[in-house]
């Protein structure tokens, strides 16, 4: 370390380079690259050059956008050392209630959005309060919340309910200039969470609380507020995903959240991106990479058209493998 200082200008660059490599998300991009390379080779060999059909690509893409949005919220929750298993049902709540309220009436679009955002904020607040004030294990608290939402949802709606107006579907199908609106939506959420985590005091405090609640407390940080904030943010991203899915399929149905398995998949994406379940480390880029890995997997398996079910097997293996590598690296560093 000390001899480097005499070579300051040059070593600064070396240090920066090393820092990028050391940053948590670096390995995931390497993994991503390798997977993509392998996948594209396999795809082109198997299909003799034929690309994925537009329909299939679109369906995979839309799933990735929905997953990506909620995974950003899940990132915040995991960073503070908590977990949210209730997002699947909250996504359904958001989709069904918004389309039921809008009921094909363009004038009620704003109302529908505001109401479900308010529900989301309440759900996040309830999760956060139960975890911090009643000291219920976050796993149980949010699992309980998912049961509660599931019951309410299934008692209220048996099938597609209402419909979103055509204008609202702009969210899923529109173009802003040359760019598909869903990408702007996802990009907006990613940017917002990125700014939150990297630049705001709240974001800094989230890392602190997840890293060590004791250290955070001794530094005068009100850890309960931070944990609650993370849960509210996560719930709001779930609501946005629900709105996006409603826009896509025109009408919300109670099963779209749980069928998409968004709770576990979003946690998987975040964990794939190098954010630790124990909290305190990770970030949006890793999560985005995690979502993209799952996306690449889906596309390549779909285009192979051999056994779409095998992609679940591959997912399982990759998730376990990635986390095994992360823990190995961290343990090695700590030694």
């Amino acid at each position, binding site marked *: 370390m000390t001899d480097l200082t005499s070579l300051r200008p040059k070593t600064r660059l070396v240090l920066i380079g090393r820092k990028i490599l050391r940053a948590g998300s670096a390995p995931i991009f390497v993994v991503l690259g390798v997977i993509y390379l392998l996948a594209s080779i396999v795809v082109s060999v198997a299909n003799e050059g034929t690309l994925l059909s537009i329909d299939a690509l679109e369906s995979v893409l839309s799933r990735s956008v929905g997953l990506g949005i909620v995974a950003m919220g899940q990132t915040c929750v995991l960073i503070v050392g908590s977990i949210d298993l209730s997002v699947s049902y909250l996504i359904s709540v958001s989709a069904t209630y918004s389309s039921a309220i809008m009921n094909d009436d363009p004038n009620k679009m704003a109302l529908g959005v505001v109401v479900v955002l308010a529900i989301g904020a309440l759900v996040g607040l309830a999760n956060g309060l*139960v975890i911090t004030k009643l000291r*219920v294990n976050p796993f149980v608290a949010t699992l309980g919340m998912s049961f509660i939402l599931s019951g309410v949802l299934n008692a209220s709606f048996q099938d597609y309910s209402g419909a979103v107006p055509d204008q609202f579907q702009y969210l899923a199908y529109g173009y802003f200039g040359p760019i598909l609106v869903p990408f702007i939506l996802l990009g907006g959420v990613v940017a917002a969470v990125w700014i939150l985590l990297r630049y705001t005091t709240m974001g800094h405090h989230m890392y602190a609380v997840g890293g060590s609640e004791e250290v955070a407390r001794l530094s005068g940080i009100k850890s309960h507020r931070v944990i609650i904030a993370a849960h509210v943010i996560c719930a709001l991203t779930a609501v946005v995903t629900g709105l996006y899915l409603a826009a896509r399929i025109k009408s919300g149905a109670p099963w779209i959240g749980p069928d998409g398995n968004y709770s576990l998949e979003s*946690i*998987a994406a975040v964990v794939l991106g190098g954010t630790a379940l124990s909290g305190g480390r990770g970030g949006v880029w890793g999560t985005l990479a995690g979502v993209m890995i799952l996306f690449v997997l889906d596309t390549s398996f779909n285009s192979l058209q051999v056994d779409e079910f095998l992609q679940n097997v591959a997912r399982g293996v990759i998730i376990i493998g990635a986390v095994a590598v992360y823990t190995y690296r961290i343990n090695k560093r700590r030694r």
Partner: protein
Amino acid sequence: MTLETPAPIDRVSMGPSEASLGVRALRTVRSTPPIFLILLALLLAIYSQAPTYNFVSIFKNGAALAILAAGELFVIVSGEFDLSVGSLITVVVTMSATIANGDPSSTPMVFAVMIVLGVVVGVVNGFIVTRLHVPSFVATLGMMLILVGAVNYITGGTPLGNLPANFRMFGRDAINNFPVLGTLPNSIVVLFVTGLLLYWLLQRSNFGKRIYAVGGNSRAADLAGIDVAGTKTLAFVVSALSAVVAGILLGGYAGVSVNVGNGYEFQAISAAVIGGAALTGGRGTVAAAIAGGLTMQALFALLNVLGYPPELRDTVEGVIVIGAVAYGSYQLRNAK
């Protein structure tokens, strides 16, 4: 010293104290895990609404979940999660149907294959958690995806074959002419036998005592000479085997489909948790976990009797799960 000095232990009475009957009864109620009272209250509520209700059906239909919860409890007490049990149930039901394809003579062989499968899944889970140091949430989530994918891959999304009668009898049939009850469903017998076995394993055997030690403080357990990795791995094996048994029961009365086990992992964890098990490890009892599983079934029955939409069961369940854990953590903080 302002504190009262406790007596040497050999002078302290260790049996039940000589307090009055009323005080003793109150003490018993207080020390009973609340889950038994909740279950009793639910059964009484059902009885008050529908005195002729077939209470045996609650136990019959709740047996699979109760067994699963008791198995999951082993992993929870050891300080880990097992999210793979629901998908393992699906594997057991669909693969048994595929292999047996209605042939009754194959049943013993099918059982043997499923038990081996359970052992393999448990050992792999344990290996990933204890040797690769992957958090069990992630490890068993991965295993869940692998098992679901494998089932769908092998069956192509629709299960083939069917289960022979001598396979289905465990979950479906009953012993007739049973004293008092008239008929005794086989699944209750299975629940009773499995429950006793699991109780002995967790709360009586050296293996079970090691699980509590590992979940309570793995460092202290290690320094007391306990093989922490091996103990955890065996806990995963017990959990997987209980999923095999639950799968055999569910195959009997729920039939064969690729989503028969969906959501059972969370149901099982909830049942164990409302039975007082701590997700941080080291606490929980088999009887309470079984009661937790039966409570969920009783809840379903009660809402049915009351004429509420059955979907609300989930909501009430959610409230009970959160409430039970909040109560537990409150009690733990104020214990003496």
